[in-house]
């Protein structure tokens, strides 16, 4: 991996690289001088753009830093590629995307193990539990984007250390050419005609969307946020009657026809549908009628971000109408969707393309989630092994 460094930190950066090579973890502290305004305001402690002297000052400071480190952001995930390009073009700030396929835990590890180095990620895109635990560990800087008040109350930290950015529903993707009658609910999945065809995109003890899939199955089978066991029982039943296939579904396995029915986030499945069209695959996406489960990811700023101004500008960009609509184009539901709909700034064509849902999403509390995770960690292997 090549790391390109801001001009004013080349020396420090190369020191950090040398230090890293020497197996020691003392990097160079970023040069904070560049991110202070004339009247001595530091971007690293700014809790909003206004606090730093307005957007123009923030843009200027960020441009001076010239670089932004992001981590674990795949370009083909919720249209992130367009967001990265858009930001680079608009502000001329270079984005380094480290290990695009990393997990939330990888992000936290990068922040904790490289404290004070130039190579730490500036901003994080985390699963909600990870955002919570990172905030508890004091890793995150509080920051309110301009549209902060429009983010629904239940979807942000009271201290503004993290806030939901985009999310989606658990959906069932289905290869309409291979599967005669696409399933529209969890109940359908149990039908004998789907033998060996139903896959998750990973293991629920590791993958967030697979975990969501089990939660949704629980809701469909008499479970609740407090009780995920029926979801485990459902997959155990699915495994027993031979419908469940343990292969992790990826675009490649879908193309080969190995996982013609794949349970995944709707924005990923819908994105695949576009991708597959050119390959002659008809990939249909529905949100199961009997189990609707939504989950949002969260944005956060690293407290020790080496590029504090660029980090804050990135957040402002993500929560601008432009940024939110780009997520929407990637079939993800941005956190400001409701507010933008009211204000008339929502991209209506993109919104119309989303898989249909009824009602507003509700979310399990942190306690309910951690209880459910324990149940999964203990019981998933037993449910699908053998």
């Amino acid at each position: 991996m090549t790391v390109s460094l801001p001009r004013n930190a080349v020396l420090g950066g190369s020191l950090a690289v040398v230090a890293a090579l020497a197996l020691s973890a003392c990097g160079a502290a970023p040069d904070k001088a560049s991110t202070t305004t004339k009247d001595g305001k530091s971007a690293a402690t700014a809790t909003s753009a206004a606090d730093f002297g307005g957007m123009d000052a923030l843009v200027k400071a960020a441009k001076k830093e010239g670089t932004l480190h992001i981590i674990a952001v795949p370009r083909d995930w919720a249209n992130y590629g367009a967001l990265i390009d858009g930001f680079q073009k608009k502000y001329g700030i270079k984005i380094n995307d480290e290990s695009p396929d990393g997990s939330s835990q990888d992000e936290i590890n990068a922040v904790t193990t490289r404290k004070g180095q130039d190579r730490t990620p500036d901003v994080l895109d985390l699963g909600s539990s990870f955002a919570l635990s990172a905030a508890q560990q004091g890793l995150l800087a509080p920051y309110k984007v301009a549209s902060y008040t429009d983010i629904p109350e239940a979807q942000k930290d009271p201290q503004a250390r993290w806030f939901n950015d985009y999310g989606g529903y658990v959906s069932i993707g289905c290869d309409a050419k291979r599967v005669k009658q696409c399933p529209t609910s969890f109940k359908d999945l149990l039908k004998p005609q789907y033998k060996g065809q139903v896959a998750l995109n990973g293991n629920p003890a590791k993958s967030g969307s697979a975990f969501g899939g089990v939660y949704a199955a629980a809701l469909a089978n008499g479970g609740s946020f407090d009780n995920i066991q029926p979801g485990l029982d459902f997959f155990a039943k699915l495994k027993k009657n031979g419908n469940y296939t343990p292969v992790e579904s990826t675009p490649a396995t879908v193309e080969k026809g190995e996982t013609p029915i794949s349970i995944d986030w709707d924005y990923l499945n819908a994105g695949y549908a576009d991708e597959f069209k050119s390959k002659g695959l008809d990939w249909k996406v529905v949100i199961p009628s009997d189990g609707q489960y939504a989950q949002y990811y969260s944005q956060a700023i690293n407290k020790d971000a080496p590029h504090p101004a660029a980090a804050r500008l990135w957040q402002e960009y993500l929560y601008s109408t432009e940024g939110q609509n780009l997520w929407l184009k990637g079939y993800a539901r941005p956190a400001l969707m409701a507010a933008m709909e009211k204000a008339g700034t929502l991209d209506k064509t993109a919104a119309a393309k989303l898989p249909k849902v009824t009602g507003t999403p509700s979310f399990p509390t942190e306690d309910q989630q951690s209880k459910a995770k324990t149940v999964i960690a203990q019981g998933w292997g037993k449910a699908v092994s053998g």
Partner: protein
Amino acid sequence: MTTALPRADVAPVASAKRRRRAPGWLAVVPLLVFVAIAFGLPAVAIVNGAFSVDDATTGATTYTGANMTASLQGPYLTALLGSVKLSAISAALGALLGLPLAQAVVSSRSRWLREAVLTASGVLANFGGVPLAFAFVATLGNAGVLTVHLGLKDTGWDLYSFWGLILVYLYFLIPLMVLTITPALDGLRSQWREAALNNGATGVQYWRHVALPVLAPSLLGGLVLLFGSAFAAYATAAAMVGSAVPLVTLQIADALSGNVLVGQENVALALSLDMVLVAGLVMAVYLPLQRRSARWLDA
């Protein structure tokens, strides 16, 4: 290195001896330093992490055996035993199938065949991870080319099972066995065979009483190597059977770098320590056996 001063009552002979031995020690220092950094530090970190718990809010670290206890219970224990079982069976099968294959290659007169098989083995022994899993999925999976072509579905064939995974592992374990055992097979002198046959031994008797005992140390070594390879394999299983076959490496990955479980890193380290202990046990069984079978070779 000892830096103790020679005591006055020690015979000068000893100190002379020590002076002669010092250069030998010095030559080993770079290796020891390398091992200490590349192997010692991570090992210490694993042991330290396996026995400590960080408090999420205060960041304080306390020492406890809770992680080790947790790592030897419930699904973790199932996974550990599953890994041992899978590795033992696939190593045994790999050795059983690799030995005759290697013998056939060694005893053939064709140099070309020998070179080809050994080169191919070198490549295949290192073929693993997701590409290997996907190759099998595309060939023998539920919609795989062969599965559809030969109608395997009706016979109850399922790649995503314990035995399916063993089949995939054999794909790289057999070549590994061929690579490991070929030099030993080269060491079997044809005179021994001739002598045995001249004394009226059958081919079976020759193998039972002469060749196999001579090969035993290398065979055991090969078995241990195969066991280790299968035991440590991760990516292939993760992509192919997910959690349908309980394996300790998959559990470590879930705990260490997932999007779901929070704060399980130390349990993952405890699981790694369990793996180290299992590997240590295997070595503890292997070394005395090897010594016993190597003993008569010295004669």
